[in-house]
């Protein structure tokens, strides 16, 4: 699957890039970071225009994110009504909603390019929590544009080391996600007083 996606972008360029990043933003596990690095390498070879590639990747990702937000907004409540008990009941969901709203902007921005594995979930959660669409879109556009520019530029600079760079950035991203999870769980475990049910 990864090979087919990379081959499509290496062969067809921007149209394939647009489709792949939009699908990935919906939560389909595709190697978007590596794809953007390969795009940068293709730009270094003169096979693709760098500005067009950044624009296409940003627009494609934002459209995919918007679809995820819409699913969360109009389908999220039905899911919560059905599976809400698994998340701790209505009171717990209300508190999660409040939390999502309080760190929404930063969460949206950083999940676009730094902790990308969380991106599709944050889209759904933002929609379900009815986080302001305008704020979501502003942070989304900023994050996706920054991420696309960053990874395509890295691919441009390290155009002969695309696979190693993709692997390095992927590992760093997962390590960071592990660190965030450890910090959150450690805080709950060692510093927070137990919640009363």
């Amino acid at each position, binding site marked *: 699957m990864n090979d087919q996606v*990379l081959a499509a972008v290496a062969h067809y360029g921007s149209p394939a890039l647009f489709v792949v990043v939009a699908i990935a933003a919906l939560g389909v596990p595709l190697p978007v970071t590596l794809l953007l690095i390969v795009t940068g390498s293709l730009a270094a070879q003169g096979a693709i225009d760098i500005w067009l590639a950044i624009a296409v990747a940003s627009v494609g990702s934002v459209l995919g994110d918007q679809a995820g937000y819409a699913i969360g907004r109009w389908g999220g409540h039905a899911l919560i009504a059905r599976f809400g008990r698994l998340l701790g009941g209505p009171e717990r969901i209300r508190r999660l909603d409040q939390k999502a709203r309080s760190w929404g902007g930063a969460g949206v921005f950083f999940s676009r390019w730094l902790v990308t594995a969380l991106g599709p979930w944050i889209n759904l959660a933002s929609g379900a929590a009815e986080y302001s669409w305008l704020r979501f879109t502003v942070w989304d556009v900023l994050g996706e544009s920054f991420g696309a520019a960053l990874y395509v530029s890295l691919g441009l600079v390290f*155009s*002969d080391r695309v696979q*190693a760079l993709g692997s390095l950035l992927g*590992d760093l991203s997962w*390590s960071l996600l*592990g660190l965030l999870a450890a910090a959150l769980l450690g805080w709950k475990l060692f510093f927070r007083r137990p919640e009363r049910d």
Partner: protein
Amino acid sequence: MAQTRRQTILLLLGFCLAVAATFFFGYRAGRTSRRIRWQNEPIRPWMSVPFIAHVHHTRSEPLFQAIGVPPDPRDRRPIRDIARTEKRPVADLIRNLDKALAEAGQSGQAP
């Protein structure tokens, strides 16, 4: 009481897993960053011949010749597609390309 204890055990397990994942991926990232300068990029079926030539700092013509395809720097078909057209296994083409790259390296061919 029993529920609180169960929650604590689950949190502890999650915490240990998260710490282990942090170190595992951090170690892999460190190892890759040490190797990134000198390790050659392996050839993959999604790569085109000009892409391989660029990554290995060589010209594309000898690589096209090595797999028996007329040299054309604008030919950006992935090796997988070339193999399908030529009715040859992908592994066969990759072997030929590796050999051509090794020869280009020995002759000190400029990009």
